[in-house]
């Protein structure tokens, strides 16, 4: 950032960047604003931007109608559980690929990614039957497993790229000192890998949180997360923009807040570790 810029140029850039930023953010802002309007204000022409009677009514209506906390809790369990499980399975795999690569490593990695391209719709019916057989329908365990599998390739791939950045010399040095494989992992690699793992966790929580195909099709009441909560607010009878906005805000707020607080790690996570 050592490039010198004139204040004029900086001001112009500031203006442009803020304009673009606000434009991109606008749909979310508009949703949040609308959630505080009455249904009539939500569709008024011309639209009202800030000067309306702010009301919390929509939130109480939504809460009364559907038990938000239960959906939220399921989302937390599913997103958190699937990520933790995924990390447990993926860390050793990624470690092995990064530090003991063979000529097949890259093929395996790419094969793993390719499993993500299988169209979920095509295998829904078989999955449903499998879930029935195993008694997993509408259970948190079943869905956690599925979400873990859905995101596992991404987790492995991200961790792999992070691990690869860890210089091999450190390992060699540790080995000289007579460190065992376990020591290597616990005392040398883990501390260096923590930031990468943190980014991976964050990104996967977001992906699992927003997954809407399996979560909708394999749950009913007990394990239904926020994606199902939203499905009861789309095009009901009568005016619904304000209620829809309130429900939407409630569904995305937790992840939005989490994302903003952990922005630094996340930006790294978002790049899937593939770009330095």
């Amino acid at each position, binding site marked *: 950032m050592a490039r010198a810029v004139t204040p004029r140029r900086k001001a112009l850039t500031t203006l442009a960047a803020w304009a673009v930023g606000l434009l991109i953010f606008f749909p979310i802002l508009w949703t949040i604003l609308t959630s505080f309007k009455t249904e009539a204000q939500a*569709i008024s022409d011309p639209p009202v931007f800030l000067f309306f009677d702010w009301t919390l009514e929509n939130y109480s209506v939504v809460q*009364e*109608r*559907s038990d938000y906390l239960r959906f939220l809790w399921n989302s937390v369990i599913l997103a958190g559980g699937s990520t933790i499980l995924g990390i447990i399975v993926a860390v050793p795999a990624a470690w092995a690929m990064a530090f003991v690569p063979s000529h097949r490593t890259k093929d395996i990695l790419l094969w793993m990614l390719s499993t993500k391209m299988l169209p979920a719709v095509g295998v*829904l*019916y078989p999955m*449903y*039957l499998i*879930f*029935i*057989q*195993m*008694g997993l*329908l*509408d259970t948190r365990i079943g869905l956690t497993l599925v979400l873990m599998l859905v995101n596992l390739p991404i987790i492995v791939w991200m961790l792999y790229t992070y691990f690869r950045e860890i210089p091999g010399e450190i390992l060699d040095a540790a080995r000289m000192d007579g460190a065992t494989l376990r020591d290597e992992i616990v005392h040398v690699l883990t501390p260096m890998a923590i930031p990468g793992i943190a980014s991976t966790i964050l990104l996967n929580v977001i992906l699992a949180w927003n997954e809407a195909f399996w979560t*909708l*099709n394999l749950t*009913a*009441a*007990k394990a*239904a997360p926020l994606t*199902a909560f939203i*499905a*009861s*607010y*789309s*095009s*009901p*009878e*009568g*005016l*619904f923009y304000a209620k829809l906005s309130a429900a939407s805000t409630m569904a995305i707020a937790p992840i939005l807040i989490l994302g903003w607080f952990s922005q630094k790690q996340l930006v790294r996570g978002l790049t899937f570790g593939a770009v330095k």
Partner: protein
Amino acid sequence: MYLTNARRAATAIALVWGAAASAETITIATVNNGDMIRMQGLTADFTEQNPDIELEWVTLEENVLRQRVTQDIASNGGQFDVMTIGTYEVPIWAKNDWLVSLNDLPEEYDAEDLLPAIRDGLTVDGELYAAPFYGESSMVMYRTDLMEEAGMEMPEAPTWEFIEEAAAAMTDKDNEVYGICLRGKAGWGENMAFLTAMSNSFGARWFDMDWQPQFDSEAWATTLDTYLRLMNEYGPPGASNNGFNENLSLFQQGKCGMWIDATVAASFVTNPDDSTVADSVGFALAPDAGLGKRSNWLWAWTLAIPAGTDSEEAAKKFVQWATSKGYTELVAEEEGWANVPPGTRTSLYENQEYLDAAPFAQKTLESIQAADPTNPSVDEVPYTGVQFVAIPEFAGIGTLAGQEFSAALAGQQSAEEALEKAQALTADEMEAAGY
């Protein structure tokens, strides 16, 4: 064969697991329509009477709900104890032995009181397989003030010709008043429900007696031409995305002169809390074309219990509660008579309090009674159902055809092209199904 056995075993396992997990919790899948949301709000009454039964609600948007329950029942998933389904599904599912018979509901339920037109549609081989929650036909809802301004008077039973004249007279696009609002959103339960019912009045039908699709008939061409002309000249913009709910919202905002749709909408458009035009809405029977059939349909949202549920008794108790006379009274007490679920019981239409509170009651009843699912069109047909064809393939075909008509409404293809494509794809699907 392996799968069938595996499925039986799976069901057994699921039953055991389910039973262990939930002693007496019943899971109810329902649509996010106003009446169902209201029912959800009133469940305290049920749980007070039945403290040992807990209710879990799965409330979903109609398309999602239908997909979920069909998937679940067809693969024997057993996720739900009570399902909200329509008159289309009930006979098909009942024939597959997927539903629990409700013939043994107690005397006080008074199944005889259910409207015959509705009850017959839910009865297969003498067994009642679903209890109607609310029933509907379709009719014309119009703005009395706009009609007056236009110097016209709506007859009790208008013709399509009159509807077109009235639409022309009421349209005022500069002020965002559109003469007529009709369904345009693709879907067998959306635009195809309307178009099929409309086509009946023009003497069209889906299939002839040999199950040959009839979209190449003159009658369908007239139907579609009339529909497209009405909508293109007097309809709201973007009508090809409007379903029931979108139109309801337009009408409530005073943007529609006429709206031909479900009779249940009557209580919403006359409700001053939601509707800006509540005190100037009139009702008339659905239009005809002078061929002896009107364009009104027949539908009921019902509560049914899937066979194989582990809480059959509790589920029955709930179904009985939600569709009883007592529930009607409960709603009347809490929300007023105009808001009770309509179109299921004869006694409701003999109740003076209801008739006073609901100016649309008489027309609703007439419309429901006028619909004849066994003889929907002018010519004979091999199927039952007014605005649908009661075969399992119809949901798929209806939606695919509906998408063609919706595209025609959006101006992406001509009426002829849409009919040609609908004809071809219906023939394809029917062949695939083995007709």
